[in-house]
């Protein structure tokens, strides 16, 4: 997968890396058991300090998204962190209301917001989850 960073973004570099890996897992572009680039490869590819990559990986490991196998590398976990569906639903509902009020204040219509969501879906999944959309 391709990770892109922006050093002057307000989000710290390690958070930018974390967010993109979690998005890829959520969107299905990274699957359980997939191997991630090593600290060294990623830091040289992005031209950032290896400690920054390590920090991102350590946090993701603590959250249960990835695991490091000694001598073999870092992989996406087979059992991803389980979330409480009911709990999440409430939070997503809140986020949706916030999103809609922001959109309506900016003069957007519901159909335009749906189009934005579909764009975001393509961005995040790269088409990897098409099957589920029709289900």
């Amino acid at each position, binding site marked *: 997968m391709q990770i892109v960073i922006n*050093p*002057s973004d*307000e*989000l*710290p*570099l*390690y*958070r930018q890396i974390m967010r993109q890996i979690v998005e890829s897992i959520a969107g299905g572009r990274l699957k359980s058991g997939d191997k991630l680039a090593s*600290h*060294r490869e990623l*830091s*040289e590819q992005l*031209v*950032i*300090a*290896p*400690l*920054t990559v390590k*920090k991102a990986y350590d946090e993701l490991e603590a959250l249960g998204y990835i695991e490091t196998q000694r001598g073999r590398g870092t992989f996406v976990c087979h059992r991803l962190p389980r979330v409480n569906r009911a709990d999440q639903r409430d939070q997503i509902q809140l986020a949706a209301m916030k999103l809609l009020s922001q959109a309506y204040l900016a003069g957007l219509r519901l159909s335009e917001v749906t189009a934005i969501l579909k764009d975001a879906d393509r961005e995040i999944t790269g088409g990897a989850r098409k099957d589920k959309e029709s289900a």
Partner: protein
Amino acid sequence: MIPVLEWLDVYRSFQRGVPVLNGVSISIAEGEVVGLLGRNGAGKTTLINIAMGMLFPERGSVRLFGLSPMEEPVAVKKRVGYVSEDQIIPSFPTIGEILALHRSLFPQWDESMERDLLDRFSLSLRSRIQFLSKGQARQVALLCAVCHRPELLILDEPAGGLDPAARREFLETSVRLLNREGTTILFSSHNMTDVERIASRVVLLDAGKVRLDRQLDNIREGTCMAIIPRASAPDPGVIAGMPGCLRVREAFDEWHVVVEGSRDSVQERLTAVLGHNGIRCVALPLEELFIEFLGGDRL
């Protein structure tokens, strides 16, 4: 653990009564990458020259690996790589001859790294020094500074005067060194993007003192800037006295205030004190932080 590099209450002046460094203490641990920032004339180069044993501190002390660079220069220099701001390459005819000298000086000289870097920088051993471009001269200086596998690398404005491509190559080489050797790096720079890329910690030097010394992530996540219309806070003393306030600066008809805390929490705290009066909190990229701390109109 002994710090790799430590300045303790260092004081130095070049004219009586005009200190360039006025009680500076910084301690750098193994594996850290520290960006040293400050305006021109803030004392960055003086601080580095003291660490390299080229200047003595009038007060205070400096230690590298627990050793004094003035009393044990050989023991220290074996373990340090250094590229100065205005690197003057010794007047040898060719790159090959400079490298031969370094190889004979350092028994631990790494010839495969030397070949690797020559190749990477597209430098030839037969190239004549006098015809090198500024960027190439920097690359030769870097090569000389790293092939003895130093534990500490000190770079004074390493990218000064380099074009963007040469600068990126310089950074790429530094990242490789970090990966391969776990080298500790101290570098001074005016390029905030470079600092944001590779530094884990930032030290801001101003008028001979350390103004700010923090982890970069902590700056990003733990500070923000509040913009307050002056009409909302006629007395800046009230703002300056608030807990977590690091700096207040006057900018036209607003106060720019650097505050510790996330944007939401700072907004909440300020609103509680000053009411809803057009106060807004924004993120603070390093470049802005530099300007807020070192720009004019300080209170």
